[in-house]
């Protein structure tokens, strides 16, 4: 179909052609291609622009470590655009739409590329240095311009339309990576009957076997050996194989997170199929067989499209049947690139030269090169690359004794294949805090001490050759099986014509340029050059952690898979220190970029967080309530009638409740049953109030402090019987209070005979408030006299209300005659409807949380967490009356006499009445002395609660103010944008200060 496909090569399905688009142009590839391999097969190397300099870039790898070829992909339907997809990973399917990134107006002509010309301005640390002056330019000029041109790709604008799944899995042995080492380990364990999970990020098993030219394994060619092994593993009941599954993180106790891609490769995914699934795999033993990643060489122009890893070119040839160019110069410091050159040469690609920076290379490689007519330039270096959107040639010269380059010649080419050797892939091992030790001879970090039950096999241990990887995989499996207490028979895999090799690790390649001048890239994705790293060191960055942050080397989405070692080597060279002394940055999960959807799994929308609803919630919904969230509950906020806004509805609810009767769903109140012979003693120790003398059938306001003396919670507490208390807590505090009670009971007072039970969801609680509350309730109550004499304020009865067993409290959070009826929660709505029906005789009003807040504020009742903030003592809140003076101790008592708790200038809770009664202050507004217009003014405190009081015909507020009690009757100011409000400090009880109304 075009000039870059090689007949007879590759594992693509040549019978199935696939059409796709890139930047609007239609191309053709084959099933089995990636976007990158298909574009390369069409001669397209230019796939994107870089992050900072907008330099033209093409793919530099053929795998998940790709830093350059990041594209946007759109799958069918809205909400399925994804930026920064690696073209080297995205599998091709019919109709796939892809676009390039970081370019404007087009990939071929990009205005932002001017940054490249200005690169001296954008040197390491430019962000910290260049835009310092003038200061006023930052907001208006620098930041908007930088923001507009920075960033990788474009964020999706629509909600993600896909679903994601998650599962747990337990196994004896998890093997990560299905290259030669992983396959050998899997075979060894599978034949032993061990439970094995084998995961690999690719669509098919084989790892580097897929990239190498066919050799002979156990007397078969690679392809048929691989097919036979896969068939054997697939036939084993004890083996689970997962492909397109990336082990992204290695967590405590051998838990490995595996992100499995399920539909991204499909033209027509099954309806409702999850896009990805997160596996949490807990394995008794883990084998990490993730191989090694090839390092780039650092030379001027090493980022030009057409310059790529030698191993990648080999993969494109052997796996995808694509030659990456017609004339490829190879530049290397490792034997492996020679084999890549041979593979390409054998496929008909012209190799004008193999440039090896080492002084000697073994005779076998040299003779193999000679056989193919390849010019082997040992002891040579590449000094520069020509071509902008595609490499057109290289300059090559001999490295002289003083590291200068002489006899420079130009060699035309359309591809440059580089190899700086191989870095063991130890990211997951590092997640476990396993130590790495520096192997001086091979200049490589290798796995050291382990913290988890894991074994590293193959390339991860610095081994380089198929035979070594197979043998090491078998060995690792045997170690794991022994650790599992199983038999550990070995097996042998014999490779014929194994390609062993070695190499050296380089800084920037020798050239005659000033080391601070070239454009030799270390981190392609973040546009960090060797010059940047040397500059960072010269400016005082001594540790690699500093260098990383100053230059951003290794901080891109590829986490420096290709750049870390080169950056380290250059920094060490500039510092004049041994590499291991410069340190190593830490790898953290995820191994490759992972979608938020995969992490979220099922936890989105209504499954993100539970919405708790009372039994009466359905009635509220049917009757037009507007809801608000209160902790996890959804509560009716107000009940607007036709034409009413919130203000009008709340004013009406307040008015009608105080005038006749209002009904409120208080079921969300936290409830704890405290039961046992020592229940009263326990309550005495927990709450500030005295409980011993509280009679059965009575209730009392209870105040709970932390041991630090600050208010934690409050609520009405009823004594049902000698050994039983019905404790109520704030809606949001229920779980916290129970936890605190359990903590004290279990760890400090295990001698107390008390049981605590959360009963919040066992009771529906209906509050009736207002002068007519008794009349509405009375017809339904059996066996109890509700008269003021027989059933006074703060009394409680167990009785029957409307045929339901009930706990009936006479309490009031509004200052009106009030009752709270608790019935088993399933009967809540039934009772609610009965009471509502009866209440119609009295124009009953159903009110929500907003009216509840207003009515309680009119009476100065506090809301813990609104009028208190964790620094408020009972005295600060005017609640000293709630403290049992004769009690020797309760939680927090000792703290109340700590010196700072007694200071007169503490912030104290007071009322505020604005000079202009129509002004409703903003809650949270800061308070200053009158006339204090200094900037900044001294802030005395803040408004905690503020409402329009319908019954008073004016606004009211509560506030925490420094020395607030002393200020009673004086003025303070509340500066707000555009206007400063003045208010008078008052007491907190605004309505019915004598409390006559609750006595009705």
């Amino acid at each position, binding site marked *: 179909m075009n000039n870059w496909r090689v007949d007879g090569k590759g594992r693509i399905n040549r019978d199935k052609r696939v059409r796709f688009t890139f930047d609007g142009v239609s191309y053709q590839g084959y099933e089995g291609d990636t976007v990158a391999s298909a574009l390369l097969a069409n001669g397209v190397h230019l796939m994107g622009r870089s992050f900072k300099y907008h330099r033209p870039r093409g793919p530099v790898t053929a795998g998940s470590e790709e830093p350059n070829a990041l594209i946007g992909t759109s799958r069918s339907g809205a909400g399925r655009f994804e930026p920064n997809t690696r073209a080297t990973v995205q599998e091709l399917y019919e109709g796939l739409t892809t676009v390039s990134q970081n370019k404007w107006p087009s990939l071929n002509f990009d205005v932002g590329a001017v940054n490249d010309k200005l690169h001296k301005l954008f040197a390491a640390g430019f962000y910290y240095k260049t835009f310092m002056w003038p200061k006023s330019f930052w907001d208006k000029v620098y930041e908007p311009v930088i923001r507009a041109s920075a960033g990788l790709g474009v964020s999706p604008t629509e909600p993600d339309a896909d679903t994601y799944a998650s599962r747990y899995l337990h196994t004896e042995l998890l093997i990560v990576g299905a290259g030669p080492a992983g396959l050998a380990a899997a075979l060894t364990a599978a034949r032993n009957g061990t439970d094995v999970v084998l995961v690999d990020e690719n669509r098919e098993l084989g790892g580097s076997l897929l990239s190498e030219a066919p050799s002979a394994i156990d007397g078969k060619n690679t392809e048929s050996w691989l097919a036979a092994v896969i068939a054997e593993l697939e036939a084993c009941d004890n083996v689970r194989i997962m492909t397109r599954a990336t082990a992204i993180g290695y*967590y405590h106790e051998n*838990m490995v997170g595996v992100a499995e891609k399920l539909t991204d490769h499909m033209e027509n995914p099954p309806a409702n199929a999850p896009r990805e699934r997160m596996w949490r795999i807990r394995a008794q033993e883990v084998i990490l067989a993730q191989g090694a990643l090839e390092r780039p060489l650092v030379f001027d122009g090493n980022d030009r499209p057409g310059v790529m890893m030698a191993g990648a070119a080999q993969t494109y040839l052997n796996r995808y049947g694509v030659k990456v160019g017609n004339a490829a110069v190879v530049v290397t410091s490792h034997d492996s690139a020679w084999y890549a050159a041979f593979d390409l040469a054998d496929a008909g690609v012209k190799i004008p030269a193999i440039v090896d920076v080492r002084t000697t290379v073994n005779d076998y490689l040299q003779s193999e090169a000679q056989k193919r007519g390849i010019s082997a330039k040992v002891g040579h270096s590449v000094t520069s690359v020509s071509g902008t959107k595609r490499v057109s040639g290289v300059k090559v010269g001999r490295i002289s004794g003083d590291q200068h380059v002489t006899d420079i010649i130009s060699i035309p080419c359309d591809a440059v294949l580089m190899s700086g050797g191989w870095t063991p892939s130890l990211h997951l091992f590092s997640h476990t805090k396993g130590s790495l030790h520096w192997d001086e001879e091979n200049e490589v970090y290798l796995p050291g001490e382990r913290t*988890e039950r894991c074994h590293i096999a193959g390339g991860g241990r610095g081994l380089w050759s198929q035979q070594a990887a197979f043998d090491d995989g078998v060995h690792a499996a045997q170690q794991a099986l022994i650790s599992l207490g199983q038999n550990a028979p070995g097996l042998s895999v014999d490779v014929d014509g194994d390609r062993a090799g070695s190499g050296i690790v380089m800084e920037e390649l020798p050239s005659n340029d000033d080391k601070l001048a070239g454009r030799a890239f270390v981190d392609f994705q973040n546009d960090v050059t060797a010059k940047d790293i040397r500059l960072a060191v010269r400016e005082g960055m001594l540790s690699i952690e500093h260098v990383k942050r100053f230059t951003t080397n290794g901080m891109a989405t590829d986490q420096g898979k290709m750049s870390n070692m080169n950056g380290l080597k250059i920094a060490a060279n500039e510092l004049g220190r041994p590499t291991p002394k410069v340190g190593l940055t830490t790898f953290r999960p995820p191994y490759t970029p992972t979608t938020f959807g995969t992490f979220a799994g099922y936890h989105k929308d209504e499954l993100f967080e539970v919405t708790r609803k009372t039994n009466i919630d359905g009635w509220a919904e049917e009757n037009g309530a507007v809801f608000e969230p209160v902790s996890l509950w959804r509560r009716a906020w107000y009940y607007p009638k036709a034409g009413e806004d919130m203000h009008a509805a709340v004013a009406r609810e307040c008015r009608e409740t105080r005038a006749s009767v209002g009904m409120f769903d208080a079921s969300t109140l936290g409830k704890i049953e405290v039961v046992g012979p020592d229940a009263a003693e326990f309550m005495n120790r927990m709450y500030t109030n005295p409980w011993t003398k509280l009679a059965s059938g009575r209730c009392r306001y209870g105040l709970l402090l932390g041991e630090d003396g600050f208010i934690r919670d409050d609520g009405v507490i009823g004594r049902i019987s000698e050994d039983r208390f019905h404790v109520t807590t704030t809606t949001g505090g229920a779980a916290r209070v129970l936890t605190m009670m359990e903590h004290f009971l*279990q*760890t400090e007072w295990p001698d107390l005979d008390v049981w605590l039970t959360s009963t919040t969801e066992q009771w529906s609680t209906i509050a009736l408030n207002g002068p007519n509350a008794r009349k509405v309730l009375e017809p339904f109550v059996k066996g109890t006299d509700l008269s003021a004499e027989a059933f006074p304020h703060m009394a409680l009865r167990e009785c029957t209300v409307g045929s339901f067993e009930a706990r009936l409290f006479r309490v009031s959070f509004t200052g009106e005659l009030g009752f709270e009826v608790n019935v088993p929660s399933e009967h809540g709505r039934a009772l609610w409807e009965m009471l509502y029906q009866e209440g119609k005789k009295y124009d009953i009003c159903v009110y929500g949380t907003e009216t509840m807040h207003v009515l309680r504020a009119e009476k100065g009742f506090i809301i813990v967490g609104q009028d208190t903030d964790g620094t408020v003592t009972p005295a600060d809140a005017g609640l000293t009356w709630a403290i049992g003076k004769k009690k020797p101790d309760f939680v927090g008592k000792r703290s109340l006499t700590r010196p700072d708790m007694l200071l007169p200038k503490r912030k104290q809770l007071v009322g505020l009445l604005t000079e202009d009664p129509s002004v409703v202050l903003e809650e949270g507004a800061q308070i200053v002395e009158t006339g204090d217009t200094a900037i900044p003014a001294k802030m005395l405190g803040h408004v905690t609660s503020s409402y329009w009081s319908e019954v008073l015909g004016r606004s009211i507020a509560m506030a925490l103010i420094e020395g607030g009690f002393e200020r009673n009757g004086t003025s303070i100011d509340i500066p707000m944008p555009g206007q400063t409000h003045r208010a008078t400090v008052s007491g907190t009880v605004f309505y019915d200060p004598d409390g006559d109304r609750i006595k009705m």
Partner: protein
Amino acid sequence: MLLIHCPYCKEKLPELEFEYAGQAHIARPENPAEQTDAEWRDYLFIRSNVRGDHAEQWRHSHGCGRYFNALRNTVSDKFIATYEIGQACPTSHAEGEENNEQLES
């Protein structure tokens, strides 16, 4: 994710079922009223911040609901031992050695 052995359930269970509850073996003074301000301050606020083995309370909040003590290494984040409330902190780490060993490579 850590696996934590609940000494009451006698089972090793995922970290998700548990919550941390502060440093262990800090007894509430018998008679707080007799505490000096400094003594009470220390009880309230002063905690060790060890690099190494740390005795702490945990709660099996999504299991049996009970509080227990644990000895955990703050560097390796591994549990050396868990034991019931009221029991002394194990001085010998015999139980923990198996869990906390640095496995040989």
